[in-house]
């Protein structure tokens, strides 16, 4: 407790700097609303995928294609990145900029690891199975759903990297804090969506067929 207070005193920032200004609070509220819209977006993509997942035409089916070990590792990486993102917010609340930057960097690296696995996976499907966007309705909905998620991860990586640069330059202020908080919300959201992707696309495809 004492260290916490000491740290805060040196920074002269409130305990929750992201909520210190009306702009900050608006940003967080607006972002919750945005995420509600994103939920509908992914909901529609999932519904499309569920409708079309057995429409394999002449192409391979889910059970022929998916390899659970790879996606399980990807899932693990992404879940851990959510945890590190929580650590970064805790560091922010302690006013510890150095630890904040470290945890953000770890989060970005984990995100990159996930993305690398996904690219590898797509590459395999296309080159070894001839499974592309045009193969079947199943393939179209697979690439669109998983690709949309991947695009979100990519965006998140760029965004958080940008913020790392900003915080390194400007420090932790009532302007940068809401940005970090909101990007963390985004990152958790992308993670939660992945848990659904893992269940609905991979587990269901591999186990139920």
């Amino acid at each position, binding site marked *: 407790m004492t260290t916490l207070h000491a740290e805060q005193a040196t920074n002269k920032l409130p305990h929750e700097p992201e909520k210190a200004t009306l702009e900050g609070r*608006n940003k967080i*509220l*607006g972002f919750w609303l945005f995420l*509600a*819209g994103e939920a509908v977006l992914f909901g529609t993509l999932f519904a499309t995928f569920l409708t*079309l997942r057995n429409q394999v035409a002449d192409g391979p089916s889910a059970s022929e294609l998916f390899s659970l070990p790879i996606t399980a590792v990807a899932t693990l990486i992404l879940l851990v990145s959510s945890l590190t993102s929580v650590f970064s917010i805790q560091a922010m609340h302690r006013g510890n900029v150095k630890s904040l930057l470290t945890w953000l960097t770890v989060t970005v690296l984990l995100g990159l690891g996930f993305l690398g696995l996904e690219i590898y996976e797509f590459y395999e499907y296309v080159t070894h199975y001839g499974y592309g966007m045009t193969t079947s*309705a199943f393939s*179209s909905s697979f690439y*669109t759903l998983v690709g949309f998620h991947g695009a979100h991860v990519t965006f998140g990586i760029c965004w958080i990297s*940008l913020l790392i640069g900003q915080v390194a330059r400007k420090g932790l202020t009532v302007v940068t804090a809401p940005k970090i908080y909101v990007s963390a919300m985004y990152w958790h959201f992308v993670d939660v969506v992945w848990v659904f992707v893992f269940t609905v696309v991979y587990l269901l495809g591999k186990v139920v067929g």
Partner: protein
Amino acid sequence: MDWLTTVDHKKIAILYLIAGGFFFGIGGIEALLIRVQLWKPMNTFVTAQQFNELITMHGTTMIFLGVMPIIFAIMNAVIPLQIGARDVAFPFLNSLGFWTFLFGGLLLNLSWFMGGAPDGGWTAYAPLSSTTYSTTHGVDFYTIGLQIAGLGTLIGGINFLATIITMRAPGMSFMRMPMFTWTTFVTSAMILFAFPAIAVGLVLLSFDRILGANFFNVAGGGNPVLWQHIFWIFGHPEVYILILPAFGIISEVVSTFSRKRLFGYSSMVFATILIAFLGFMVWAHHMFTTGMGPVANALFAIATMLIAVPTGIKIFNWLFTMWGGQITFNTASLFAIGFVPTFVMGGVTGVMLGSAPADYQFHDTYFVVAHFHYVIVGGLVLGLFSGLHYWWPKMFGRVLNETLGKIEFWTFIIGFHLTFFLQHFLGLVGMQRRVFTYLPNQGFDLMNMLSTVGAFLMGVGVILFLVNVVITARKPVGVENDPWGDGRTLEWAIPSPPPEYNFKQLPLVRGIDAYWKEKMAGHKEMTPAEPVGSIHMPSPTIIPFVMSVGLFIAGLGFMFTTDDFGNSFLNFLFNNYIVVIIGLGITFGSMIVHSLYDDAGWHIEPEEIDGKGAEA
């Protein structure tokens, strides 16, 4: 330049009004061309292909680029004032929403000049919208243009939600909010849940067309009915996104000009929420004839009819508000009064269509055309005219000419009923919609001719409105705060047009119809809730404009990725996604710039406020 960079909600409102009015005009011309083609049997004024393009573009333009932006114009002009705020929650996003809408709309209309407009109907049903049946780039303009424009709508919705949640003046609880604020709030929530669905639908359709995906292509395992579900899961809520703001406008106008509090305020609020909720449950009533089976049809029919209950509550509340009120019959209130019976007729035919067995008879006939024009034109457009006449003095500081206004009203409403009332019967005697001509002597001839006459009368009404606007623009600015004398809500407590910061001091709200309450207590102005202080304002910025240009370029680039231009340089640029990358680069680049340079804004100091002579 000022207008390209503004983030002031009042100026953005005017931008929306001009752009929306422009597209409304284009949609109107398309409508008249359709009616000219149909005015006599076997007409050859346009070809079948041109006819398909006209009806597709008419519906799409009117709904997405005409009435939606005009609704947004009124919301932008009024909402911050009604809730006693200095601005919206996100001024930057407000401007971004406008520019994406405008560039999306321009992109869509570019199709007329670049090889053909979309021709698959405004619902773009697969497989009509597939590359097999629609071979030009028309549908690509549709999917990508609407995608960009829809982004703007979504941004606007989020902005209004946040604004209404966090920026209300002290004392304004949710149950003290004016009715128009309430309907804006609920509408925005509907936008938030409906627009992402169509965004996905448009992505899927453009992937089918441009990347060769198989979502709706039966040969590849795709499912055309899936498109219909996605379209209507968005589309039915969309019709309520359109009508709820009109309900809000009518509530304001009716109560102001009856000099009475809105009857049954809380039941109005709950009816609005209930309508929004049910609006998401009934989409498949547009699909009774696709073979969903009797159980699904029955469920959707019942859910559809349930909406009549809250809608009926609203109608009766308006009637009870007028009942025993001292009604002023000016243009705004005439449009509002004309709205009520017209909308009721649209509702009644809606319930008729909602009965699944009957819909097998009505479906895809002019009866449906009559129904939705009664609700959209007879409901929404009358509501918009009412709202524009009502708030014009607040927006521009000048009252629109009343005599001309009344002539406008009568030409428009007579023209409207002449056009569309007959179409119910055209439908009942079997005239199909979306056919470009018909044979003589089937009982269609006279009614079609009269319908065309009515359409031109409506056109005259709209032109008279424009004349009125021009005449009024010549008058000097400077009506007082409350030109109607009966203003009830906060926007009437400040000067017309309002100063840049709206309220010198945030007002203290002590009840529903806050300004009326103060007037009745003998006060001339609102009690301030804060001392006079320096007011923080956001800086103008060009970034939203540039971001939208980037999206426009990327959209065009994406559409032509598979084309052969017969020119190796162009082929290189487009086929390798270089144009797309440039466009997205512009967009994301400006986002990064926006994020790097925090806007400190600027301040209006107390001395300046008084210097500007604002008496708020």
